[in-house]
């Protein structure tokens, strides 16, 4: 078995298994902690509306918190949106998902995806610099923060290497790239899958739970979200 076969076969399936099982474990373990019913008379009983408001309202900071704060307030948008465009909008990624699941969707124009790489990389570098230099972030940060940054940044680098000019370019019919960089790219993504459920990257799903429960609790009081 060559490296690409390994990366596309057992390594992929194992990392996906860990991703799904680890995430499910984390969620179920938290759910099992249980919670007591709130006996105070609520101002609003619209729990779902509260949860949804909590989830959506926090996508954009309130105007009082937009200025004078961390660079990350803005850089966060750069790399989240940039990564989303690359992961979900790049044709070879869609073809890859289609091969695995049968699901496909229209790609973004290739130039747009290449343009998204810039903000993603700059955004990630900005937040790393800030994490290393800002006293608050420095104090809060631990191994999880730096390793999580690394496993997100790595697939970007390996992905760029895989499509860079030194190798044959991908074609619309999904013809394979030069195998070694592609294998390395896949393995770096698999490292991300392996780590995601265990560290802070799990905020990919925990964010909805956290914002949701806070949204319900605050909406119950009629308080600001």
């Amino acid at each position, binding site marked *: 078995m060559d490296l690409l076969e390994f990366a596309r076969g057992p390594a992929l399936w194992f990392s996906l298994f860990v991703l799904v099982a680890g995430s499910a474990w984390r969620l179920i373990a938290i759910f099992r902690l*249980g919670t007591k019913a709130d006996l*105070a008379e609520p101002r609003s009983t619209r729990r779902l509306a509260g949860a949804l408001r909590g989830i959506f309202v926090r996508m954009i900071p309130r105007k009082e918190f937009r200025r004078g704060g*961390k660079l990350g307030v803005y850089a966060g948008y750069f790399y989240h949106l940039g990564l989303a465009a690359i992961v979900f909008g790049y044709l070879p990624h869609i073809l890859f998902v289609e091969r695995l699941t049968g699901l496909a969707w229209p790609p973004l124009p290739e130039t747009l995806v290449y343009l998204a790489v810039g903000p993603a990389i700059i955004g990630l570098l900005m937040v790393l610099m800030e994490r290393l230099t800002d006293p608050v972030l420095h104090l809060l940060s631990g191994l999880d923060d730096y390793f999580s940054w690394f496993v997100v940044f790595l697939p970007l680098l390996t992905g760029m290497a895989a499509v860079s000019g030194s190798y044959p370019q991908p074609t619309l019919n999904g013809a394979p790239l030069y195998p070694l960089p592609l294998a390395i790219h896949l393995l770096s993504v698999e490292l991300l899958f392996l780590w995601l459920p265990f560290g802070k990257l799990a905020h990919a799903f925990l964010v909805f739970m*956290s*914002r949701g429960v806070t949204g319900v609790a605050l909406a119950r009081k009629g*308080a*600001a979200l």
Partner: protein
Amino acid sequence: MNTPATVPTALEKRARAVLASAAAPDARVAAQEFVAQVSRDAAFQLEACVRCGQCADACHFYLVTRDPRYTPVYKLRPMLRAYQRERAPFAAVKGWLGLPPAEVTAAELAEWSELVYDGCNLCGRCTLACPMGIDIAGLVRRAREGMSAAGFAPADLYKAAERALDSGSPIGVGWPTLKRQIEIQEQETGLDIPVDVEGADYLVILSSIEIAAFPETIGALARIFRQAKLSWTLPSAGFEATNIGVQIGSRDVAAALLARIVDAAERLKVKYVISPECGHAYSALRWEGPNLLGRPYPFKVVHIVELLDQLAREGRLRTRGKDGRRLAFHDPCQLVRRGGITAAPRRVMRGVSERPVDMPSSGEANFCCGGGGGVSAIRRAEKLRFAAFECKKQQVETAGAEALVTACANCRNVLEDAIDDYHMALPVLGLTELVAQYLEPVAAKASP
């Protein structure tokens, strides 16, 4: 009497046991309580933190000191570690691998006592800013359960809690004092002030600060209720609204104190209990109370500002004339940001203010006075509290306010102290008193 029954109830005994912990602080007890505090919702919040640091920029303690230790989420460190060590999803695996997070230590908790108490007003501004929607203030409230149960809360708060359990008031204001103040207010207003009237619609309770420092509030209420023709009463026992239990962060102390109000309300068979001008008292009675006692109330809780607003809108509260100064409303955090009463106080104030002005980020994102969450009762925190006032001061100056109006006696006291410390000339008014000052005159006829 506002004091407990001669035979202590089970609630009182548990509350006193918490206070006894101050004599022998025990990190193990704190860790156990931290873990017990992490329910499903709290766990979702603790686990979602991405260490982005944005909460720091929302917290006045960080903004004025620039000390990163005042970063809101950092105040949760010991609780987070105890949870990660013993209860978090992969805690057992980490244990097997020999990689569990370190146990919390007494030295660490002694250090964190300053961060969790002196350095947090439970004001919730950080909660509003966190992009992950983490209710950091709610989690600090939970962390205080562990700190107070294990002897790591500030000595001043244990003492205040003891006074509250002994005398009914954290500053030792008992029924004889209230009785005297009622008599003075009866003389000043020419009105009877009803006490222990069974079957009245509204039960009025007060904060010690109002009784001791702003007793005119009692007269103001009497005049307002006379005009609105409300049936109301004060209780001679269970009149203390403040709850040091929610400030020190002990559900046992909080429940024991709250039970006295609920007893009074049930004894007098009232339909409503009016929470007075005090933010945390409202939070304790309105939101925490039924959960502390484990049952819903047979009455409704209404904040005095909500009631004034309702009466004004129904045409039962009529005023004449307005204050001509530039008045800015200082939002008590527990009432506005955490309590959901944002529009009512502004509407009420506009009714008696010719030139209302808004401070920057007023309303839900307002800065705390610096003394909420029990901080005003901690002597060693005074310097930090005055420093934190800098944020408020800037807001006041930007708005060009000539006087502040608020609806919390603790805010009022803390603001007055800080204004003094900063050598500013800025009166702070209570909203209820302000309204009473502009009540439409009625024919002088003394009736309840």
